[in-house]
């Protein structure tokens, strides 16, 4: 998997299939976002339905400074510098996640889903209402973030950055999963009352995870903005949040590679199904229901299960 994502896009690009490199880039960026969501959804067991907002914030953190650097105004943030964009993306996401997390983490279950979705939509409408940045019509990013050593205008460099970022994020979530912090989160998911009874204030850990998760999605948004160079509020819509959720759940929440597998499945399904019908979201939904009902750990879990039961039969 790791190798596949490293070699195939390179070969495709060298052989002139730039279209496919684009698909891979989008795939890897979505996988990063899914890993971010998985932190709160998979490890924490909290179904956040507003994570597209962070991707949007990350993307606008590129678009807005570039816009002002080009057309003037807002000197404080106007810049082409990638570090300014990145810093802004992560900071804004952390703040937004903290504020919304403080409120939404007081609820559970359906209420949590609804309130995170409401906050996401709030961000969506906020951007729609700002005419300066194109409102509904979106905003074209005239110049990509400037970074030392990496030229994001080169599709291959951009892909390289995304790819390495994904590896870092997966490794990070791997460490977190087995750390005291990660185990505390999983305990709260498994049995929150028991956690209380053994003396753990779950809230502060869940809030931290919520912020971390938002920040990772914001980073994905930073990459996405640089990739598409066209951003619009549509990327914050609740259906987008649903798509990331789809990846995490179908791939296997709580499985390390689940979100990545989920992102691959998403891209493949989207590609195949949209060939046949414009209503491709419908079979998507059905598949998600199937995954939730029958595959406890998603596709990744099912593959795991098959291979380990196969191994048991052989022995």
């Amino acid at each position, binding site marked *: 998997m790791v190798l596949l994502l490293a070699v195939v896009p390179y070969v495709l690009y060298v052989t002139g299939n730039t279209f496919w490199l684009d698909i891979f880039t989008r795939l890897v960026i979505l996988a990063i976002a899914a890993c971010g969501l998985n932190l709160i959804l998979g490890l924490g067991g909290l179904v956040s339905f507003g994570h597209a907002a962070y991707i949007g914030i990350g993307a606008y953190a590129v678009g807005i400074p570039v816009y002002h650097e080009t057309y003037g105004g807002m000197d404080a943030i106007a810049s082409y510098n990638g570090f300014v964009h990145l810093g802004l993306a992560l900071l804004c996401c952390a703040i937004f996640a903290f504020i919304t997390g403080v409120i939404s983490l007081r609820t559970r279950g359906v209420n949590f889903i609804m309130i995170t979705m409401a906050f996401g939509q709030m961000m969506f409408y906020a951007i729609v209402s700002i005419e300066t940045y194109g409102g509904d019509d979106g905003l074209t990013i005239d110049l990509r973030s400037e970074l030392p050593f990496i030229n994001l205008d080169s599709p291959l460099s951009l892909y390289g950055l995304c790819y390495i970022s994904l590896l870092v994020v997966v490794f990070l979530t791997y*460490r*977190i999963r*087995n*750390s*005291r*912090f*990660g*185990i*505390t989160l*999983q*305990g709260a998911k*498994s*049995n929150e*009352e*028991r*956690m*209380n*009874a*053994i*003396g*753990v*204030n779950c809230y502060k*850990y869940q809030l*931290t995870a919520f912020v971390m998760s938002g920040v990772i999605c914001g980073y994905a948004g930073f990459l996405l903005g640089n990739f598409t160079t066209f951003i619009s509020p549509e990327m914050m819509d609740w259906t987008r949040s649903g798509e990331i959720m789809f990846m995490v759940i179908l791939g296997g929440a709580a499985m390390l590679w689940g979100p990545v597998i989920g992102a691959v499945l998403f891209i493949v399904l989207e590609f195949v199904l949209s060939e046949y019908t414009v209503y491709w979201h419908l079979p998507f939904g059905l598949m998600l229901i199937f995954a939730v009902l029958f595959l406890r750990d998603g596709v990744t879990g099912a593959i795991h299960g098959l291979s380990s039961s196969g191994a048991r039969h052989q022995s």
Partner: protein
Amino acid sequence: MSTPILEVRNLCKSFGGVVAIDNVNIQVAEGEIHALIGPNGAGKTTLISQLSGLLQPDSGNIIFQGKDITGLPPYQFSLAGLARSFQITSVFQELTLADNVALAVQAHAGHAFRFWRNAKKDPALREPAMAYLKQVGLEERAGWLASEVSHGERRQLEIAMALATDPVLLLLDEPMAGMGREESAELIGILKNLRTEKTLLLVEHDMDAVFALADRISVLVYGQVIASGTADEIRNNSKVRSAYLGEDES
């Protein structure tokens, strides 16, 4: 009696119209095993839940080690030194027994804002966890998932987890519920061994266990404490005989 380690003052709790705890006063002395008995629905679990902070009383006070802890969030009760086990087994089903206990050890080892080191290989958590499992006789099941072991073993796990938070006072809600004879006898032995280190408030229906263990007994009926005293005093109390023990014998 020396100053009590736990003092419950005029505690009241209703659920809608049902008065579950009706002006209860109980004192638990340091180092004793205090049994709380009473018929089904008397309010024993409701009382334990309030003493562990998981339920808020309507009125009254809970004074633990001289401090009024009424109204604190539940994790503060645990940090103050009160640990409970649950009548309906409540453990982390998808974790191993060792992980279950290690999580309880970790909960009392300070904050868990540690994101990097592998906690499953941390001897500071593993070693005490194994010691607690051993204390309740579960060391051989350490690697099993909580969902895979027998009911009786899960009950013992409950106790290991409560012990792992290093409590001053253990609140045990029917620890022997659903256990076989042998397992019960084993558990009585384990609890007897604890009496030198801990104070115990024990809810139990099994009267043999109660008379074998308890220094003092309080009897709860319809949310009220109708008697409190030594085993002999309780056995010979006419109110208790008619309200509870008589019922039990029939």
